[in-house]
């Protein structure tokens, strides 16, 4: 168990900068998710933490000690690989024992640890099989087991569930979360799946284009995305975002996109004292209200283009004077395409971004 600190990590490949000045603190016992689209540098960052890849500048600390010059083995980390990387010529038992015996752990300790881990992961009956005789889910467990028997300071996961089918992925996800809580281990987990990120993580580290976008608990990341990228990347269907312009008019702030003009609530003024220029306005599909509300809100007409019934939810694809609006309703309603409805965009649910940064005040404490 340990904490991890990254200080200004940058990585340059021949083709350019893949990680730009990443700083991050992961405290002991935290399940941290590195989330981002493919090519955002999250796997490279994980490999730098593991010591499998070198960084161009910056420092990695595990438990307060710099590990930049240490080999992966000396860092006392364990890694679960995307394709599991089980040694094909060794049995499950030998796979589990390999790392311990490389470290000259006494025989009886190895056996004890294997027995405990196999029990915990429910792979006792697989111990004498070869990896090729295991199903995908079983291989995944063995790969987990190989990491766990070592009792490392840090667990690193490189998209470990991406090779499982959807059903197995869900159940394995739940088990993994239970396991992490039981072990109280510090885990760094790379994924591009926002559902995995939301459900597993204590902290989600959103990355894009080699930059760290936001590192916050899942709920906070969802409710208060710090920039338009995070806002659009997390949530299904994604947040409605409009690229428009802001201007001041008679004490009111007007957001204009296409033919649509929306009067915004009085946000705190920025340093320059006024809002003018390009901005991005957003609202989550489930925050749009169709029923009359007394809360302060922007009221606007929307015509329904399409109605998707997902059973539990209904997704309405609408347009407001040509600007697209997606609405998610949690109860069934008899709304048909072609209808025009008044919709409300509650003030407290709006997200306003200027210069790629969030303008609305963040709440002082976590929700």
């Amino acid at each position, binding site marked *: 168990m340990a904490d991890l600190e990254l200080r200004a990590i940058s990585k340059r490949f021949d083709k350019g900068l893949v990680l730009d000045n990443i700083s991050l603190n992961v405290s002991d016992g935290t399940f941290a998710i590195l989330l981002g689209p493919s090519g955002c540098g999250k796997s490279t960052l994980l490999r730098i933490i593991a010591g499998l890849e070198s960084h161009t500048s910056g420092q990695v600390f595990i438990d307060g000690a710099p590990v930049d010059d240490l080999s992966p083995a000396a860092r006392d980390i364990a890694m679960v690989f995307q394709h*599991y990387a089980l*040694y094909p010529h060794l049995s499950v038992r030998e796979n589990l024992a390999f790392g311990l015996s490389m470290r000259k752990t006494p025989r009886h300790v190895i056996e004890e640890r294997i027995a405990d881990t196999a029990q915990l992961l429910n792979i006792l009956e697989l111990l004498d099989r070869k990896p090729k005789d295991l199903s995908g889910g079983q291989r995944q467990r063995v790969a987990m087991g190989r990491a766990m028997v070592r009792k490392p300071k840090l667990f690193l996961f490189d998209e470990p569930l991406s090779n499982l089918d959807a059903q197995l992925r869900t159940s394995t996800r739940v088990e993994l979360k239970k396991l992490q809580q039981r072990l109280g281990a510090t885990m760094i987990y790379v994924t591009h799946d926002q559902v995995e990120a939301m459900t597993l993580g204590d902290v989600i580290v959103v990355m894009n284009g080699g930059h760290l976008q936001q590192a916050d608990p899942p709920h906070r990341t969802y409710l208060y995305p710090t920039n338009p990228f995070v806002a659009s990347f997390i949530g299904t269907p994604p947040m409605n975002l409009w690229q428009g312009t802001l201007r001041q008019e008679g004490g009111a702030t007007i957001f204009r996109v296409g033919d649509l003009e929306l009067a915004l609530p009085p946000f705190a003024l920025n340093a320059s004292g006024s809002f003018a220029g390009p901005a991005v306005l957003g609202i989550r599909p489930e925050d749009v209200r169709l029923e009359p509300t007394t809360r302060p809100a922007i009221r606007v007409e929307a015509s329904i283009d399409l109605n998707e019934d997902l059973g539990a939810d209904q997704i309405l694809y609408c347009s407001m004077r040509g600007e697209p609006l997606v609405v998610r309703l949690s109860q069934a309603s008899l709304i048909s395409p072609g209808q025009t409805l008044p919709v409300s965009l509650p003030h407290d649910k709006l997200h306003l971004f200027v210069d790629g940064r969030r303008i609305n005040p963040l709440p002082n404490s976590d929700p």
Partner: protein
Amino acid sequence: MTQRLLLVLGILLTVTGSLAPFVWFVLTSFKTQQEVEAVPPSWWPSGGWHFYRAALFDHHLLSYVGNSVFVAGCTTVLALAIGIPAAYVLARVKLQGKSWILGGLLTVSMFPQMAIAGPVWRLLANVHGLNTHWGLILPYVTFSLPLVIWILASFFKELPAELEEAAQVDGCTTWQTLTRIMLPLATPGIFTAAILTFIYSWNEFFFALLILTQPDKHTLPLGIALFQGEFTIPWGELAAASVLATLPLVFIVLLCQRWIISGLSAGAVKG
């Protein structure tokens, strides 16, 4: 249907074509001297083992076998000992000019033997390598290394890099990764390379003729070729000796066949 027939016919022709000379030699080795010289040739032998006896005891075949086993064995072991680490480095380690090295190896193996015979002889003469077995092993290892390295490098390249990284995280040095993880997985490639090297040095004639002049040093191909006397060609003894010389190869290939199964790495990544 016709396609199938043509296929079967083609296979039959190929197999017969390549086996016919060998079958003829096997038959000849069991003939009597009269049958060997008979015109028109007599097909079915009735002679028994006497040519074998003659080849083994009158022509000292066993000493040639011993020499060949030594030379081919040493060549194989040395070629693998040098070739395995070289191939691993060329396949996996980041190295400047890697493709030049691999290309160079290929070029070297394309030199015609005639062109290098002279220099090789001169070099060996300078280091007193003529008429010694190591003087033969040295060029054999050199000639087989390009093939060994190419076979093994392509094998190592096929193995998933994740396995090496897992080994690294588990605490292996590069050398341990090679010996404990990569080598067991490359077994099919290693056996293939070993067999090809062994066959090459078992059958090689030209350099053996060039370097070994003392009969007690002769390897099998050389010994058998020099069976012939001044006025006669002992076809029967030659046939018997050739059969005996081929048997170990057939035996080794059959023995190793079960190791040359690909797919040993199945299950390393997803299966």
